[in-house]
């Protein structure tokens, strides 16, 4: 199997972010997507704690403990950016004002159900943050995740077995093997990376997949 690196996965997601979009990137791998958005695109990043127009990390020594992103990393504000309180920030998210949210996931189901905040074997107390609000609110929800678990178990399922983050919320899944769209007919493969075949990807997926339309 051909598997994309994490970097190339983030790069592939970045390709699908149009110029002029308002985008929220989840904590972790999704945050890295910003590094690969082409310079000729203007993308405005939203941070759930209350920033629109998030800029790059500050120079050493110029950090402001108040100016952090959702992942608690120091950031800056771009010209044209602004601040607001948490209720307004989530009004933006829940109200459908963000064009794209990119989140990681434990599992995605063929109907677009997302499970990304808790497992059934949590040894830690649960945490949910803003994931559920982003899941229901963004116009398009992109998931970026490995196609399978470390034990090679499928993460794209007929039904999620982990607690749900949202029902029928995922638009598109970017894995290390392929890109899949959630459609009314089911999960459709829209891109296969490298030499991967539809059959190979299907064999690592519990949900039944639809082949690319032009194949």
């Amino acid at each position, binding site marked *: 199997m051909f598997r994309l690196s994490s970097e190339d996965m983030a790069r592939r997601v970045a390709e699908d972010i149009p110029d002029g979009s308002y985008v929220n990137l989840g904590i972790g791998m999704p945050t890295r997507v910003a590094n690969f958005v082409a310079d000729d695109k*203007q993308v405005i990043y939203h941070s759930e704690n209350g920033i629109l127009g998030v800029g790059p990390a500050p120079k050493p020594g110029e950090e402001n403990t108040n100016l952090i992103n959702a992942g608690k990393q120091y950031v800056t504000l771009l010209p044209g950016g602004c601040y607001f309180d948490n209720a307004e920030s989530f009004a933006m998210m829940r109200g459908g004002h963000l064009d794209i949210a990119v989140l990681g996931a434990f599992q995605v189901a063929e109907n677009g159900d997302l499970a990304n905040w808790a497992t059934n074997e949590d040894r830690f107390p649960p945490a949910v943050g803003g994931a559920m609000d982003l899941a229901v609110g963004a116009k398009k929800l992109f998931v970026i995740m490995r196609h399978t678990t470390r034990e090679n178990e499928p993460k794209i399922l007929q039904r999620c077995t982990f607690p749900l983050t949202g029902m029928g919320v995922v638009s598109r899944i970017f894995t290390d093997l392929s890109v899949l769209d959630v459609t009314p007919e089911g999960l459709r493969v829209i891109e296969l990376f490298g030499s991967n075949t539809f059959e190979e990807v299907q064999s690592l997926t519990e949900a039944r997949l639809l082949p690319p339309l032009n194949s």
Partner: protein
Amino acid sequence: MIDKRVASLREAVMDIPHGASVMIGGFGSSGIPLGLIEALRQQRAGDLTIISNNAGVGEEGIASLLRDGLVRKIVCSFPRSAGSIWFEKRFEEGAVELELVPQGTLSERIRIAGAGIGGFLTPTGYGTKLAEGKETRVIDGKGYVLEMPLNADFALIKAEASDPWGNLVYDTAGRNFNPMMAMAAPLSIAEVKHIGQLGELDPERIVTPGIFIDRVVSQETIHVPT
């Protein structure tokens, strides 16, 4: 590139169709997008549903839309003021339908429409005529009315200054309904005195983040044809 500036009031409202619902910011003389309303009037779209706190006075603003017979329905809290002659006339004729909403319920219904909330329980109006036919419930001995979101096809906003991303700052009490209405329509159009460069507005003073605004038009660069 994000640049929400449009060249004229006329262009800004050109695609508002017959039968559209249009939110219009303002409270009395304060924070009303008079230029956009005049451009809308000249554009001649009719059968409009207007959502605004007041129904206009004299011959300008919403009053001019009522006078010209372009309004089918008005949703507001305080239609009757000194000089609201066109509203009174059209209402008496039965030419315009009125949905009267308590002011705080009006602004909150607009806010929740923009915030993706499906309804809220308010004590305002409980046990009154304005709650008739609405779902109610009593929680800890206090009565509440379930009120639903109020959105519109377009919002006409008035602010003091903007930038190419559509961020807005207001002047004094000119905010009133404008910030909520900007959130509650898929297409929000702001009329401002001045559009500055990106970064010119103090980010701590921005009240309406540009994400809620689709078009800005400056009174500096446009002229209302008469």
